[in-house]
């Protein structure tokens, strides 16, 4: 009987010797580390954010004034960021179902408008603002560094639809996304 007990105790001890280091290892692995650079701040300033275009006619181009330096984008945070641009359809304020589709091929048609941007001293041509249904759009200012000395300026150009119903206040949104590089 004594021998049986000794064998059983040895078997149990063997298990425990195997299990405890595994358990200890698991406990160590389960120590979750969360690293947050709390001083890193995302802050982008755009000035201005509205374009008072006024009354427009069909099939006509409108440019911001000043044409290519209308808006200034400044990185007021403390980390370098990449920015992306994403447009959207222009909607009638009173009935958002009534809209001007934002063109994806730089050509307008009935209720379809085109929007472009030009980054001063960087762009060589107007670049279309397109609508990405899912996603953050296309690259805008990459590696936008901190401070006013690194700010960029850009302008917008709108080509109105070939025809549309008049006397409606249309509103649109251009999203500028920023992420730390």
């Amino acid at each position, binding site marked *: 009987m004594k021998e049986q*007990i000794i064998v059983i*105790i040895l078997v*149990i001890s063997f*298990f*425990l010797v195997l299990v*405890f280091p595994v*358990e200890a*290892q*698991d*406990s160590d*692995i*389960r*120590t*979750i*580390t*969360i690293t*947050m*650079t709390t*001083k*890193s*701040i*995302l*802050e*982008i*300033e*755009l*000035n*201005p*954010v*509205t*374009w*008072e275009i*006024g*009354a*427009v006619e*069909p099939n006509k181009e409108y440019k911001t004034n000043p044409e290519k330096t209308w*808006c200034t984008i400044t990185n*007021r945070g403390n*980390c370098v960021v*990449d920015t992306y641009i994403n447009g959207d359809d*222009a909607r009638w304020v009173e009935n958002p179902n009534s809209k001007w589709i934002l063109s994806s091929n730089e050509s307008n048609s009935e209720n379809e408008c085109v929007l472009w941007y030009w980054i001063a001293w960087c762009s060589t041509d107007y670049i279309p603002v397109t609508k990405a249904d899912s*996603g*953050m759009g296309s690259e805008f200012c990459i590696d936008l560094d901190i401070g006013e000395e690194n700010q960029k300026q850009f302008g917008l150009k*709108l080509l*109105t639809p070939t*025809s*549309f119903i*008049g*006397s*409606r*206040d*249309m*509103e*649109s*949104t251009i*999203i*500028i*996304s*920023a*992420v730390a590089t």
Partner: protein
Amino acid sequence: MNMLQNRYVFWLFTLLLAVLLPSTTLAWSFSVSPSEVEIENLSPGNKAEFKLSIYNKESINQVFYLSSYLPDETDIRQGRTVVPDNSWISLPAQVKVTANSEKEITIAVSIPQNQEWKGKDWEIWLGISPETPELLVINYYVRLLLSTGEATNAASHSAQLVIIVSIVVLFYVLCSYYRKAHRNTIR
């Protein structure tokens, strides 16, 4: 054709109003901190929480929308892949931040208990944008870097099970031994 021409002329000479936003304000001034969060050794089956701060620098209350976003593989850190499922990230859909104040938001990350998710390096972005009628809107993305450990909760549970079974067996054996010894003493 005549009708089309008439229609065009009508619209051409009618003042058509397309006001791309009526005010002249600056962008909503707000900031987000941190710009990047790294979670290491989060074992499948476990949960981690962290806080993000949104600072509303405007003089009026502001609603911010939050969402998780799966970026393109080309936009994420080298050596990482995109998180397989953005439902693992729990965050409020929107928060209201009072004027000139800061609000902390708790974000939770839960990895399902599955051996498949061991030892992975993932990335997902958290989007924060204000509710605003302006033409130009700023949207921030916070990078969330996520690394899972080699162990899972299942492994540690089985280890605990073995320990419990071992203790029960040891207890049973000791009881049997003392009962037998006690009987022999009585005899």
